[in-house]
């Protein structure tokens, strides 16, 4: 398994127009508009190994979607190089997109007025899939997703979750080697999300490489092996998900439900991060200072508790820390 995607010093800058609010500003903008350059992606480099699932994380407007669009060849970079399977996405577009798939959570390939199965047939013609391959793939993916019952119903009557499953089938019909997913679980319920994650895992086992942008950290935690974090168009983290968890050091979160209020919770290496009530307390434990066993032993000497749960540091906390660290360094 070698490197399948190599991105070097990718930059995307575009111009937009600044306009104030109100009638006066609207009238003024008819005659003069101030051009404002926007650096959507600023010098991003990363690599993706074949068979990997990589998560691209970042807040709104960070440049995730712009990066994905440049990787799919639908946006031209201002500068920098992209190599996907030996292709430059902006050159020889047709040959390149034949090898990739894409699902954009907020855009659809399905045809609204007709059933998804007719949309699949359209993609079969567009990608030149043979009758035999088409039937085999439809059968396999329909069963994986459990969509056999509704792919013959008009798209407009399907739920968002059902439509999204059909979007995945549409994008995977031609068996792409690399699939780009931009917010694929946006707006879906827990069950639909889980089904989609299972599908991605199954397809990944069969050799498909996935590049995923999402706001849903559970997507990344459950699927991705490696993570790239982008903020304000710049890469702020690029490593494995395990390394991401260690950004704040080896820490665990301990949630306590006490039997009675406890005044003295001072234990070396432990600090209270949230006190919901006198009896519900969340503590962060630095494992480099105190082991969980020692912490528990010391804690049980100080107070009695009904319940205790030990968790990993929430991903949100780690990422917020990364964003803040970058902000402070500027």
């Amino acid at each position, binding site marked *: 398994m070698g490197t399948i995607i190599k991105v070097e010093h990718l930059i995307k800058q575009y111009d937009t127009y600044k306009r104030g609010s109100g009638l006066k500003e609207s009238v003024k903008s008819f005659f003069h508009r101030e051009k404002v350059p926007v650096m959507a992606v600023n010098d991003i480099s990363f690599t993706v190994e074949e068979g990997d699932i990589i998560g691209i994380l970042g807040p709104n407007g960070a440049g995730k979607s*712009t990066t994905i669009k440049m990787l799919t060849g639908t946006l031209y970079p201002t500068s920098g190089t992209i190599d996907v399977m030996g292709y430059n996405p902006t050159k020889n577009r047709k040959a390149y997109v*034949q090898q990739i798939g894409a699902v954009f959570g907020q855009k659809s390939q399905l045809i609204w*007025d007709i059933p998804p199965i007719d949309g699949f*047939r359209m993609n079969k*013609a*567009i990608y030149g899939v043979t009758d035999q391959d088409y039937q085999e793939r439809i059968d396999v993916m329909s069963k994986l997703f459990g969509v056999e019952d509704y792919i013959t119903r008009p798209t407009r009557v399907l739920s968002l979750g059902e439509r999204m499953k059909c979007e995945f089938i549409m994008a995977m019909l031609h068996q792409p080697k690399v699939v780009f997913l931009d917010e694929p679980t946006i707006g879906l319920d827990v069950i639909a999300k889980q089904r989609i994650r299972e599908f991605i895992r199954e397809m990944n086992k069969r050799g498909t490489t996935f590049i995923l942008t999402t706001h849903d950290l559970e997507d990344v935690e459950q699927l991705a092996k490696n993570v790239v974090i982008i903020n304000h168009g710049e890469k702020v983290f690029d490593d494995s998900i395990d390394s991401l968890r260690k950004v704040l050091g080896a820490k665990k979160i301990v949630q306590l439900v006490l039997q009675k209020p406890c005044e003295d919770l001072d234990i070396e290496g432990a600090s209270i991060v949230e006190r919901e009530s006198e009896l519900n307390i969340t503590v962060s434990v630095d494992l480099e200072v105190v082991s969980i066993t020692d912490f528990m032993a010391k804690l049980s000497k100080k107070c009695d508790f009904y319940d205790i749960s030990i968790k990993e540091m929430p991903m949100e906390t780690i990422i917020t820390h990364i964003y803040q660290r970058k902000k402070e360094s500027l």
Partner: protein
Amino acid sequence: MKRYIQIYKECIRVAFAAASTYRMNFFLNSVIMLLGDILLPLVTILIYGSGAGFEGWNVYEVLLIQSVFTMAMAIADMSFHGIMWATMGAVREGNFEMFLLMPVDTMFLLMAKTFSIDAIGLFLGGAAIFIISLTQIGMPSLLMWLQFLAMFLVGLMVMMGIALMMAATSFKWVGNSRIPEIFDSLRSFGKYPQSIFPKTVLVITSSIIPVAMIGFFPAAALMGRGSYLMFAAIIPCIVFLLLGIILYRSMVRLYQGVGG
């Protein structure tokens, strides 16, 4: 090539499926388009009925020109005019990448995917006036038919060129839905005998924006009233289409999408 034919066949199938889903909408669209465009021949009949007319042209000759124009419009509406609205909409809403992601020519795909049978009523209406006019004028020779077919195809090229140029502008001026109306007005020059216009207009309609090829020149060929200008206009028409294709392809690079 085989793949492109297959795609086009699929698109036609989808267009029929969509039309059958909203049958009432399809019937209403067909009737409204027919009524809207049939007004022109009615006005022509009224003009001639009141004793006025276009000098040198009888009512059936003018109706023939207008019916050819109507049929060309109907074919364009069915097969490639959709690219204008589809491009404008996709650029404004940021969905254009869904077309760029397909491993086929984007221009072709947009035209194929917007194939619509709504204009079938318009085509049938135009064809009916065409047949009536022709029966009054007299049957053309085989050579005239061949010239007519060639000119008619070249006229469609002009319309395709216009549609592509209009569509291309939306990459630069997002949401420019009124620009096509300017070209609609220019295209209208093609529905009248060109001899009624001043020479300057004639030069424009036959060589700069060759809209005369949409209705007038093919009809003139069928009536045996063609001139050297008609044949000379073929070259600017082809250039016009090529310019449309080149402009569209180069403007696609300006596509920026919308915020993710």
